[in-house]
């Protein structure tokens, strides 16, 4: 019986100390009618059997092929040293650092994380991470409502559709309204007129289709109405793009997967939230602060806990209890491994490869959207719908194409993404596959299934 050490002798000894005859005596409080129902679960597997079973499942999944998928998750370079350091047993099997004296590993690395996220975004106060970018956006909206006492948020449709769905779920029970700003033909968001009933304007940059937005103008529009600007940002892109603090954002949120977390079919990675000084007291989530111990040594500790659920209970800023510590640690170690130079090289490589890809697809006859101001991802219009195109490409050994959301009303298409890992051979493979499935403007080609 794996993991449970008890021998029959152990059990006998324990029962004697407790003073009962059998283990079942310890379950006497459970009503007999519900105790020990039969459970239909598969028979236990030993290590070898289990891993063979998982290998068979994994063989059905397409991995390690040319990949051009974005939509919030991308395959980036993760140096070997990153997971080895972050996944040391002490970090993996530690608990929340409530006893600070023996948790300086977690606490200090979190303080380093908070500093790095603050540097990337140009805003002073970062929390210790949240579940994901989408829920971080929702929590930011709630923060803006608390801060301004207004009951409406404005959000661009070019914010990731799943993020907007999560926003809706979080705001519905509190009767907060959502106004959506529609896309322009350029596939960017027009600067809206913000009413003085609006708590926050939420804009994603780069947006869901990959294109850059006019963030300084968005900040001005929000502030003119006394609303907050919530900037939903790509943290890797911030190695080269202007940072939210530079254009007056009040809150910067987003997803950290691209900072050193493997894709893992969508999770776990982490969300981040970074705010101005004025918003400190409204900030949800854990915070690590610096202090001294009784001997005057510098040390780190969870602080401002009175905002949180375990103290404020029904009046907490959020019910959030945990953070995504281990995923944030992967990013922390990764950012330290890459440094500003390495992170910039990755971001530049991403931009160059994405633009080379767009040029190559266009030159081969693909209907690439004309907007050239994109970071990692751009729109390719297709004849077949996006889901079909994606499936056809997968059959030809290429993972490509996040289908365009129907709600955008811009017809059939996909977004294609590239990163610093994209090679010339990858691009060739994609072009060949696109050609095969008739998406490179070749008239009259028979499209195989």
């Amino acid at each position: 019986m794996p993991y449970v050490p008890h021998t029959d002798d152990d059990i006998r000894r324990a029962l004697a100390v407790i003073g009962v005859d059998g283990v079942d005596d310890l379950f006497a409080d459970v009503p007999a009618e519900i105790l020990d129902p039969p459970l239909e679960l598969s028979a236990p597997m030993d290590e070898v059997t289990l891993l063979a079973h998982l290998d068979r499942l994994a063989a059905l999944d397409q991995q390690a092929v040319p990949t051009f998928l974005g939509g919030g998750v991308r395959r980036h370079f993760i140096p070997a040293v990153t997971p080895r350091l972050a996944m040391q047993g002490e970090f993996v099997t530690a608990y929340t650092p409530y006893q600070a004296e023996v948790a300086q590993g977690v606490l200090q690395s979190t303080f380093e994380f908070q500093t790095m996220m603050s540097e990337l975004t140009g805003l002073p106060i970062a929390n210790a991470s949240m579940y994901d970018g989408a829920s971080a956006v929702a929590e930011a909206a709630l923060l803006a409502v608390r801060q301004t006492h207004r009951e409406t948020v404005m959000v661009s449709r070019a914010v990731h559709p799943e993020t907007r769905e999560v926003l809706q779920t979080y705001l519905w029970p509190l009767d907060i309204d959502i106004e959506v700003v529609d896309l322009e033909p350029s596939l960017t968001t027009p600067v809206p007129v913000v009413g003085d009933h609006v708590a926050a304007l939420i804009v994603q940059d780069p947006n869901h289709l990959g294109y850059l937005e006019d963030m300084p103008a968005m900040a001005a529009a929000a502030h003119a109405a006394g609303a907050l600007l919530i900037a939903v940002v790509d943290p890797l892109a911030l190695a080269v793009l202007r940072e939210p603090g530079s254009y007056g954002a009040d809150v910067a949120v987003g997803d950290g997967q691209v900072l050193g977390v493997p894709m893992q079919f969508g999770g776990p990675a982490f969300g981040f939230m970074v705010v101005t000084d004025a918003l400190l007291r409204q900030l949800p989530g854990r915070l690590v602060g610096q202090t001294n111990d009784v001997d005057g040594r510098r040390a780190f500790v969870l602080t401002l806990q009175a905002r949180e659920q375990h103290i404020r209970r029904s009046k907490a800023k959020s019910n959030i209890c945990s953070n995504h510590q281990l995923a944030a640690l992967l990013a922390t170690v990764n950012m330290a491994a890459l440094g500003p130079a390495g992170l910039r090289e990755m971001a530049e490589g991403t931009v160059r490869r994405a633009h080379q890809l767009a040029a190559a697809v266009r030159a081969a006859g693909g209907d690439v959207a004309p907007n050239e101001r994109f970071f990692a991802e751009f729109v390719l219009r297709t004849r077949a719908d996006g889901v079909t195109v994606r499936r056809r490409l997968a059959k030809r050994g290429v993972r490509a194409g996040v289908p365009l959301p129907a709600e955008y009303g811009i017809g059939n298409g996909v977004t294609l993404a590239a990163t610093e890992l994209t090679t010339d051979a990858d691009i060739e493979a994609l072009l060949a596959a696109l050609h095969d499935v008739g998406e490179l403007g070749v008239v009259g080609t028979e499209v195989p299934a």
Partner: protein
Amino acid sequence: MSDFPLVFERSAPGRRAARPPVTEGATMAELLGETALRASPPRLPEVSELDLVRHYTQLAHRQFSIDGNFYPLGSCTMKYNPKLHEDAAERFLDLHPYQDPDHAQGILALLHGLQGDLATITGMDAISLQPAAGAHGELTGILMIRAFHEANGEGEQRRVVICPDGAHGTNPATASMAGYDVVEVSTGPDGEVDIEAFEAALGPDTAAVMLTNPNTLGIFERRILRMSEAAHAVGAQLYYDGANLNAVVGRARPGDMGFDVVHLNLHKTFTTPHGGGGPGTGPVGVKAHLAPYLPAPLVAREGDRFVLDTDRPRSIGRMRSFYGNVGNLVRAYAYIRTLGAEGLRRVSSMAVLNANYLRMKMKEAGYTIAFDRVNMHEFVAQPPAGLRTLDIAKALLDHGVHPMTVYFPLIVKEAMMVEPTETESLETLDAYAAVLAEVVERAQADPEYLAGAPRHTPVRRLDETTAARKPVLRYGFAAD
């Protein structure tokens, strides 16, 4: 005595560790326009690879962990995290959530299998794997209950969620986030919910009752069937906080106790790693009448194919992006498939055995047991007269063991909540009890002993007051 350096303090300009692939081509200004670019780079560390390795290795050595230390935190279920699960997770790293589902049949089959296993284990009819943490699962569950009442035209009428006064803080916080008012009912002298107060609190304005069973004192609510009947009789829904499932997993099911919604903490009962505070994972299970409200998508089976079922018009919506904390879902799947039904029964049996064994040993060591009777997988103790829980906790740190949970639940003064879990040997429990006895002896002989603890940890007691009054939440670079 110098401070342990921050990674920024190990930096020197021009140093670097990792090198990404180099890409030649146009400049960023040419491709994106000058105005799109940041003016100065972020001040990230500049360290050599060896310095990087030393820094994060040394930091790991300044950290208690299950791998290194006994960690009997009540309510946290700090059981061993099998290394096998890391091998399992490695097989599913390079999967993109938006890749063609026909080319992701392996992971979809695994997730579908896990949905089924969790439904079986909990006695519920349908499972969503989406929520990212226990508290996230709670919010999901309470929102589904709210949607249910609104669909029945009772949304306006049902404004109240009932929690016991011993409830974990996330319960009332969740109820508030879902727009409800919270009413607390008291715990009786027997450590169970005061049944009269409970039945009196129920009414046509009750939307839901949130319970844990066993409760936060580690005591099984013996009247659970009566409580669930009473709640249903007024049209309320019953919510199960799965934090304490380790006490009964494999032997009793919340579905059979009458619960309508359940959340699980996979990072507790199903041993996905705590990671220093997360990621957790908090799947929810529901009875059939609430299944339409589950967050979309679910993993469904169509013939011999697995699909992502997004066609769920009455769903409360999404709680997060993509499908859930899949990396940890794979680990939990590996655990359940390793143990099977018999293994899970053994988990709860030995968890409860260990807790009661340690309870007796702590009594011997001079501690008061708040409810001195058979408890389940955890129990609440109090220090001997004149000693404070906080001080004892700090003294334990010098002995290389982690203190139990302190000052929770709030309804017991100077609470010490102890949960050893089933993966500990009796020798480990004996050693812990011996340390607890020694701490008491030394404290009674020398009053200074506790006040000065800990003495041998990397840092000693911290000034939390200044940390809160004058928050310093990021490194101050010289140029700041």
